């Protein structure tokens, strides 16, 4: 993993109205608490050696998801070319958690950043073979121009923030 690729990813993400921050596993919790606006709901983190002690409701009820200010989920992949992240459909509820709250905080391992869309589609094919067959490639906050001007935050989040864990 070159830092160039992280930089490319960050540049593209910023161009799509997404904020990013870099951290290492040891300092992850600080980065997370700085990014979260409570109340927060979250899907479990499949990251080695990372525990989260702050107040994020995992296994939330539908109402908690609706009322949360922030939804925290892992990202399965990042695409440097577009600043896109892949949110996988898991039983932990990544999809609604990333969609309903106004703020989405995604956790992305630097080693999961690929350069281009073509790499992401290759990854997708292997994921489908492994039975993980539903995923969303999300780029920036949700948006619409249907009301006469560009507005962010339509059915999905108004703000997207990505925490890039550089030593994972």
């Amino acid at each position: 993993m070159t830092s160039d690729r992280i930089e490319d990813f960050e540049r593209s993400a910023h161009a799509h109205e997404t904020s990013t921050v870099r951290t290492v596993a040891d300092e992850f919790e600080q980065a997370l608490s700085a990014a979260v606006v409570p109340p927060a709901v979250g899907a479990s983190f499949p990251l080695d050696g990372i525990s989260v002690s702050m107040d994020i409701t995992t296994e939330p009820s539908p109402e908690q998801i609706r009322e949360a200010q922030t939804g925290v989920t892992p990202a399965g992949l990042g695409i440097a070319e577009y600043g896109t992240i892949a949110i996988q459909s898991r039983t932990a509820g990544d999809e609604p958690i990333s969609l309903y709250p106004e703020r989405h905080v995604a956790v992305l391992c630097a080693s999961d950043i690929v350069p281009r869309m073509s790499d992401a589609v290759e990854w997708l094919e292997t994921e489908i073979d492994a039975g993980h067959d539903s995923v969303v490639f999300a780029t920036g906050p949700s948006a619409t121009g249907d009301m006469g001007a560009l507005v962010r935050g339509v059915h999905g989040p108004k703000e997207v923030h990505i925490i890039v864990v550089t030593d994972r």
Partner: protein
Amino acid sequence: MSDVETRRRTAEQIRTLLETEGESVQKNTSHFNRQQYEVTENFDQYEEARTRARAIKEDAIEHLPELIEQVEDAVTANGGSVYIAEDAADAREHVADLVGDATVVKSKSMTTEEIELNERLSQNGADVWETDLGEFVLQVADETPSHIVGPSLHKSRDEIAQLFNTRFDPEEPLQTAEELTDFAREYLGERICEADIGITGANFIAADSGTLALVTNEGNARKSAVTPDTHVAVAGVEKLVPSVGDLEPFFELISKAATGQDIPQYLTLLTPPVGTPTLDFETNDTLESSNDRAFHLVLIDNGRLSMRDDPELKETLYCIRCGACSNSCANFQHVGGHAFGGETYSGGIATGWEAGVEGLDTAAEFNDLCTGCSRCVNNCPVKIDIPWINTAVRDRINQAGDDQFDWLVEGLTPDEEGSIDARKRLFGNFEMLAKIGSATAPVSNWLMNARPTKALLERTLGVDRRRSLPSFERETLRDWFDARGGSDIADPRREAVLYPDVYTNYVHTDRGKAAVRTLESLGVVVHIPAVSESGRAPLSQGLISTARARATSVADTLDSHLDQGRDVVVIEPSDFAMFQRDYERLLPAKEHERLREQSYEMLEYVYGLLANGADKDVLSRGEHIAYHSHCQQRTLGLETYTEAVFEDLGYEVVTSDVECCGMAGSFGYKQEYYDLSVDIGDDLRSEFTDVDGPIVASGTSCLEQLESLMSPRVQHPIEIIAPDNY
């Protein structure tokens, strides 16, 4: 209804739309279009991605029956159901059975518009909500979409605010786009949480895994599909591709083409039933297991499998519904899909869709609005030759029509068999008119532009009396050329055939003479053979057989010249586009290729001569010039040669960037389209209002449009640069 009455009604409808929807449509489509040019310009793999996308679609449509079988197996194995609906009614009934009187949230789907699903579901007592904000606006306003991608883009913010304030009566009146969006998000958010069933379309379906791809910016497709425990997806069979791996070029292209975004906000891949837990807001238990999810895929034929067997309509099935053809179309930019569209689909590609799924009658209602300007051609991400589909359908409409003024215009071959609209014959046979007009000039010119003649032409053939008709020269270009003894210069560097198109030969002979002088002064021996009209005139009226006969005649005449290694130089861009593009459909491949390779647009040729050492000092110089290229010339990427030659000669060039002048051949002469043509022309006029120096235009129709709108003398670029003292 008589022809006169039909024309009057069409003109009235167009005028109304220009006044009510024109402004919003133009603002939005032009914005998308500008962005599209910018984003594709910056995307290195644009052409490569288009080539791949095209190949994947060709292959998928070729193997469609196998893909249908495959997806049935895959979805069934995943635990879902698949239904193949023969037609719209079949699809409607099936979905109505699945839904019953449930509460439904839908994401945007043109296919459900095609089968008029909402009305049917409501009959059963189902509560149906459109969650795409544009579709929601239309649902509230009880209107139909006017654009494939932006269904409500004909409505302004003010109109939407007024609509919402009247319908929902909020405590504080809604005003800004943000307030309107927040309100709709909140309102529809509740509908989504309550809903029993989510209905979506599908942009693509991978046959081997049963994976659906949905493209949105709002996030409503995902929310609608995964919040309720039942998901129904409705899609045309042509949405199938072999596997997810085939989707990559489409992921790259679809938003670039549609709205000029480099990537959509959400590219959703769902292989239902999905693993996402269901959200039951009523019980409010923690997230539930996803085991009780249900999924139904409804694949619709509704004419598509027949389109697959139709050599002309087949390409329509490659369409990915991005709307790029609409956005790049000057006519669409001004009136939108409520004029330029049928029962469901709108814009350039709509003729193919409507002819295929609705029938020729529906397609005939708006087919004329494609002027064949070809600006959509390079914008189509799957390289569909949209103008050709429109021409082919026009040809079928011609064959199906009948007309009372047959006797007025004779001489078309072989399309004259049958009963083709007299006006089409008039415009399609302009060469004969020009011959007679020239032979009898100037009397013919006095007569043609006399008030009684114009009134008669308007009444019988619908030629708008406000238009000036071409003024024919008594001495044709070829007569002049023969009289001066042809071309004879010392030490020629090349030999060229100057193609005497009808306008250059009979009407604008000055530009022909300027071309001869320029070519000779740059060391080129010129030939002007007796050669037929290119076939452009009949082709634009959908008279394909006649166009083919003309093309064959042109190729035969030019054959010996090409054998001798002569270049073919063409002044009129629409004729040049025939040689380059359209002849591919009209001539044997070898003949077309030879002519394509050996022919040049006038200023492209001059540019080439100068680049290869010809002396530019013989040409005329100047300071400022306003230049309007021709739409077909721009599609071929040729306007840069004219600009470069002018710049080389010291000119400062202002080039127009409107898609088309609005005249587009015979279009602007037609009574029912006069207002639209002038409205489009006005954009061009406003670009040139404040420029210094003469105005030049490459195409005859552009020149006529500019002269009628601005009343300056407009010339072809070759007349400006031709040597003064030759």
